[in-house]
């Protein structure tokens, strides 16, 4: 061992005397198995009980909600490298492990592929004489759709595997050159990530209503996903902390300071979601062009107007007031409540983006129905339209994601133990 390594090991010992480097052999295995079983069970039950088109739409809600978390994890990992961030080193391995679930997410994409003709039938089997779709057919055709999906997953899985494996390699070699290389790769990586995420959101959600278009749509999806990633990570690390890993005890890797920062980022991306969604809404409202306003018109019927209002209140006003104070973000229970709330709202956001496209054209509400009744009436209609599977698939896939993330957590060290900025991260304090 070199003198330098010896010295840094000593200082780490002083900074984090209770640092647990790895999950004990066999520990958390039962929890992992239970989570995977619950996840598979819930999704399977939804498939058996609901089936068909309604299942595919419910599955897409859950899938896009959970995919956003994985993509948020990949984004977080790359942003920490490109900014050469010091504070986040103890959190980064968890993000790497969540992004490490992307290969499994590619497998879990199969039901979307199987159901693609139910989900995307508007453009997969366009009505003859539809000139708008004829004009878009160079992009919106089945073959290119499948090829694009393969490209997106190749980019995401490649980036996630590269960043995680290099980080784990540094655990063994302690080579600081790895940190420099990762910060260099993060720049083109983020560019690829931004493009692939935007186009994936176009393909998998926006094309449900293929006449409609919004160039900001990819960012609205991304902002909600990154927000959900922070909520998910806060809850996952809290739970790991209760089992003695990563957080919990003082002198372990994560302290109140790191949770405070995760809380700030949760707050920031919640506001960013509002910013992008309002930007989209205001431009469409102002221009008032029928081909653009149609999307909001579909969301004025069948109770979705209540969900629009609920999202403004629950995805912005309430969490804005609740998470504003540093005392809440530094309070374990306060932050956990905020994170849980945002994960639920994230599901309702996905429902709002996806489900109103299921019925329209076939059994859409008669025009003008949205005009009377108010919030209570509309919310009742929403509850009537919605099925348990529209939440069940999300919870099931969330449970699968925790299980897969745990699998990754158990395989590697809990923190990048020889990252050159680890000491800085352990010492981190908010002023």
């Amino acid at each position, binding site marked *: 061992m070199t003198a330098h390594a010896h010295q840094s090991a000593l200082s780490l010992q002083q900074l984090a005397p209770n640092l647990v480097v790895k999950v004990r052999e066999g520990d958390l295995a039962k929890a992992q198995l239970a989570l995977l079983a619950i996840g598979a069970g819930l999704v399977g039950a939804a498939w058996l009980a609901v089936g068909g088109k309604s299942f595919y739409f419910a599955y897409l809600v859950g899938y896009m909600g959970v995919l956003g978390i994985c993509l948020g994890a990949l984004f977080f990992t790359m942003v920490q490298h490109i900014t050469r961030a010091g504070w986040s080193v103890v959190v980064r391995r968890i993000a790497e492990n969540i992004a490490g679930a992307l290969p499994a997410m590619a497998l879990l994409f199969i039901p979307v592929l199987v159901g693609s003709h139910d989900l995307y039938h508007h453009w997969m089997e366009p009505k003859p004489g539809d000139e708008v779709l004829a004009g878009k057919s160079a992009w919106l055709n089945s073959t290119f759709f499948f090829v694009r999906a393969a490209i997106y997953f190749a980019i995401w899985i490649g980036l996630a595997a590269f960043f995680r494996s290099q980080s784990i390699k540094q655990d063994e070699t302690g080579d600081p050159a790895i940190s420099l290389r990762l910060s260099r790769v993060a720049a083109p990586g983020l560019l690829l990530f931004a493009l692939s995420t935007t186009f994936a959101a176009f393909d998998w959600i926006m094309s449900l209503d293929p006449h409609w278009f919004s160039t900001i749509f990819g960012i609205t999806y991304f902002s909600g996903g990154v927000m959900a990633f922070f909520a998910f990570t806060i809850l996952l690390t809290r739970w790991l902390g209760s089992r003695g890993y990563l957080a919990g005890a003082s002198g372990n890797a994560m302290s109140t300071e790191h949770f405070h920062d995760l809380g700030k980022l949760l707050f920031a991306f919640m506001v960013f979601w509002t910013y992008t969604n*309002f930007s989209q*809404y*205001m431009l469409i*409202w102002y221009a*008032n062009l029928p081909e653009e306003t149609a999307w909001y018109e579909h969301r004025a019927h069948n109770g979705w107007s209540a969900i629009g209002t609920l999202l403004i209140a629950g995805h912005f006003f309430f969490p804005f007031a609740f998470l504003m104070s540093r005392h809440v973000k530094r309070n374990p229970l306060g932050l956990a409540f905020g994170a849980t709330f945002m994960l639920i709202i994230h599901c309702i956001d996905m429902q709002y983006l996806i489900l109103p496209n299921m019925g329209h054209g076939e059994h859409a509400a008669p025009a003008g129905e949205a005009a009377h009744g108010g919030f209570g009436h509309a919310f009742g209609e929403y509850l009537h339209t919605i099925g348990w599977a529209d939440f069940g698939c999300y919870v099931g896939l969330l449970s699968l994601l925790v299980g897969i993330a745990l699998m990754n957590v158990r395989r590697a060290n809990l923190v990048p133990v020889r990252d050159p900025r680890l000491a800085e991260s352990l010492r981190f*304090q908010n*002023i």
Partner: protein
Amino acid sequence: MTNTQKWGIIAEFASASAIYQAAGKATAHGYTRVDAHTPFPVHGLDKALKQGPSPLGWLVLCGGITGICLAQLMMWWMNGVDYVIWVSGKEPYAWETTIPITFELMVLLAGITAVFGMFGLNKLPRLHHPIFNHKTFWRVTTDRFFLSIEAADPKFDSAQTMRFLESIGGKNVAVVED
């Protein structure tokens, strides 16, 4: 009566850890009007000095809320009441159009309150401060750390406070005059 008044006593320390220890001892000893002056932020020093949270956040909140109200009042009055113009079929006062201005005015007034609130709470600007009369205090921006105890402190007593600061390791302990 002389025309000079005691402002307080200042002691010099050589390191961040020394001033951290000293600040803790001074507040533990019962002094309340204690302050530390350092070349860079020292983590935990505000706790050692037993300083409460700054009220600046509340001022900024008030500034932000004032911005929201002013913007809404202005647009409601101008567009909806005083000089109504219908533009492209939109309501003269429509909440959608007011959001960007409301947001901007909230940020503007919150930002201005943050800057000038900070100046106000720090009693700035001022051209001189008695603490500059200490002969080595100029080193506070390079490599020395200073602890001050004000004469306004109820526990202040020139001779005793001076002995106390020397006993906790202060160098160049001196009374500064206003």
